[in-house]
């Protein structure tokens, strides 16, 4: 008797082809500007939003800068040309009148957020997280405003902040990321339509986690949101951002700016779980995520910590950075970037040490599957006056399958001899022997891979707020779900 059997083989590539769960579109009437960007469009935007004169000038200046700029090409990215005149720069869900309470929000939109697991109505909210929900170009609702107001914390959409706290906005907007900082920052500064604003007064520890949830719904609209967080002396805040988008075969543009300002002894923790639609398995569609995020420490011992879990987007181009101006201030960057199919990520950080005894830490974990490209790009700069500055960087890449790329571009610019700068990098592949070990103990393939990967990312996940660490673990598992051959 002769039996010939094929044994189970590890079909890694098939493990990752998991449909995007958030790819639905909300059937909603939207009110949008004509496509394209001109000074008239900007003026229309400003008058629509009844903006003060300083902001109109801010936009105009940024627009004039932007017109003279070119899209950067230094990233390790292949970007098909973007026709900026084919985009809609303002798209809002159509509404009859001013929204005063949640009951007046279009039920379709509430349903959308519900489907995304973000409950906005009082009963179902996360008990210790305040959420600002942004749908296309506008903020739909902000929860727990009153509770926050009691402790003096301002948390609202940036449009509201412009109306109600114009002097704060005027004082800080564009101080960390100037309107001409880079191509996408200039574009955002010209056309940003909404976003979140947080102000934590002195000696205040923000009683809730603050969170913004971004949703792009409209097919041709770009989302340009702007977040501004100010933490006064001795204050603390933890902030989380989440994002999804429907599944379209066209690419959508998301060009955001986040500015963080930390005064003396203040601590800002900013976490992102990004799950924009990343395109299909052939690389069609998906979000272009071109984001400028930067924090500035202007008081001594201030600390800014970025944590990001990047799993979506067709192209990710983002470098959450810290300008460590004040002495003894601290910058941290923890990142997990997972790319699959034809996704491309060029992400990392800049730690610019200007003050003395400033310290920074960078932990970056890149995971590439399919035909994706995943690059870490990081700059550590130690200025001439930054005596005894310290940096530690660790960049680990993990390759799954044989068609993906991982690269690391660490840049060092050190102008002070007392600096101590360390850099460690590893590239590893999923080990068939580790998988076999887990399989032998009865753990199925998909779960085995996801355990290996979340183990790989453990250092970063532990930096996320508790409930989001679990979310991130789940998200990673979800991204890896699929059929095993």
């Amino acid at each position, binding site marked *: *008797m002769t039996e010939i059997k094929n*044994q189970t083989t590890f079909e890694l590539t098939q493990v990752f082809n998991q449909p995007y769960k958030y790819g639905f579109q909300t059937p909603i009437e939207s009110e949008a500007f004509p496509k394209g960007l001109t000074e008239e469009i900007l003026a229309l935007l400003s008058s629509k939003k009844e903006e003060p004169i300083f902001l109109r000038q801010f936009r105009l200046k940024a627009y004039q800068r932007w017109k003279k700029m070119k899209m950067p090409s230094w990233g390790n990215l292949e970007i098909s040309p973007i026709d900026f005149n084919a985009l809609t720069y303002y798209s809002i869900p159509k509404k009859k009148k001013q929204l005063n309470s949640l009951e007046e929000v279009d039920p379709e939109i509430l349903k959308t957020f519900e489907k995304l697991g973000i409950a906005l109505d009082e009963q179902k909210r996360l008990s210790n997280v305040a959420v600002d929900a942004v749908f296309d170009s506008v903020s739909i609702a902000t929860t727990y405003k009153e509770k926050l107001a009691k402790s003096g914390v301002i948390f609202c959409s940036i449009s509201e902040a412009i109306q109600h706290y114009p002097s704060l906005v005027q004082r800080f907007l564009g101080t960390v990321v100037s309107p001409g900082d880079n191509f996408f920052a200039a574009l955002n500064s010209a056309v940003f339509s909404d976003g979140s604003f947080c102000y934590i007064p002195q000696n205040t520890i923000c009683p809730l986690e603050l969170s913004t949830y971004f949703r792009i719904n409209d097919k041709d609209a770009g989302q340009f949101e702007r977040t501004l967080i100010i933490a006064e002396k001795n204050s603390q805040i933890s902030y989380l951002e989440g994002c999804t988008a429907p599944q379209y075969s066209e690419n959508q543009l998301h060009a955001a700016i986040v500015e963080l300002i930390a005064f003396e002894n203040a601590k800002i923790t900013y976490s992102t779980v990004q799950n924009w639609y990343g395109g299909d398995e052939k690389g069609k569609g998906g979000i272009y995520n071109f984001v400028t995020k930067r924090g500035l420490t202007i008081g001594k011992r201030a600390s800014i910590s970025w944590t990001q879990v990047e799993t979506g987007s067709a192209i990710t181009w983002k470098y959450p950075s810290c300008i460590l101006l004040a002495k003894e201030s601290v910058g941290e960057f923890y990142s997990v970037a997972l790319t699959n199919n034809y996704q491309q990520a060029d992400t990392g950080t800049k730690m610019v040490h200007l003050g003395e005894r400033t310290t920074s830490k960078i932990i970056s974990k890149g995971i590439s599957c399919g035909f994706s490209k995943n690059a870490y790009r990081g700059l550590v700069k130690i200025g001439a006056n930054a005596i005894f500055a310290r940096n530690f960087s660790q960049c680990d890449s993990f390759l799954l399958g044989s068609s993906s790329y991982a690269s690391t571009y660490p840049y060092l610019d050190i102008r002070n001899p007392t600096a101590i700068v360390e850099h460690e990098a590893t590239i590893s592949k999923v080990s068939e022997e580790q998988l*076999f*070990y887990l399989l*032998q*103990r009865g753990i199925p393939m998909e779960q085995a891979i996801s355990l290996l990967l979340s*183990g790989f990312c453990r250092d970063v996940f532990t930096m996320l707020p508790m409930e989001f660490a679990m979310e991130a673990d789940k998200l990673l598992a979800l991204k890896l779900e699929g059929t095993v051959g």
Partner: protein
Amino acid sequence: MKKNILTIRNLDASIEKKKILNDFHLEIAQSEIHVLMGPNGSGKSTLSKVLAGHPAYQIQKGSIVFQNQNLLDLAPEIRSHEGLFLAFQYPLEIPGLTNYDFLRIAFNEKRKYWNLPEVTPLEFMEVIQTFLQQLKIKEEFLHRNVNEGFSGGEKKRNEILQMLLLQPKLVILDEIDSGLDIDAIKIICDGILENISPETSLLVITHYPKMITYLKPDFVHIMREGKIIQTGNVGLVEQLENFGYDSFCEKLS
């Protein structure tokens, strides 16, 4: 007659087109202890990996029946659930995964397979405590990452802990003695014999005659060039110690 738990017939297996197992036969009945010895490269470890379903090995011909099922039809994790346990010669390190989570997930996967309710992380603590005590392992062991930074002895003890937890029907010990000193080997062997259920069968791959003294096997097999060339009792070990593997050479056809 005792019931066979494992029956291997006419098995040919290869890796990267190199034939390792050549018309291999072996039968193991319930609660029997078999020792498999043989020079390096004779195919002992290949056999253990083929049994556990390592994907790098191809089967050209033959059959393996494990508890009345065609083993070759079963995915590696199903083989595990059905009661096949391989204690690794070199247990793998899994960075970032705690031993506790690893053991709990493995335990729950098996329960799921047998339609039993999963246990919560809290309940699992009770489950695992019993085994820790049996093996005299400190609780701190659970909170370290799987095998990461473990000494050779700790890794092997962790294998035995997993074995007790999963209550297998057939245990394959692949050179569990490698990298251990003589005292550690005794501890491991005692740990196995004292704690294993009496119905469990053992297939012990070793180079080390001392293991055989501890384990008191029912059968000793000498393997060479991909097949068993001699089967006997503990007496075979004496011949081996005196005359070496070459003394069995003439049996090769």
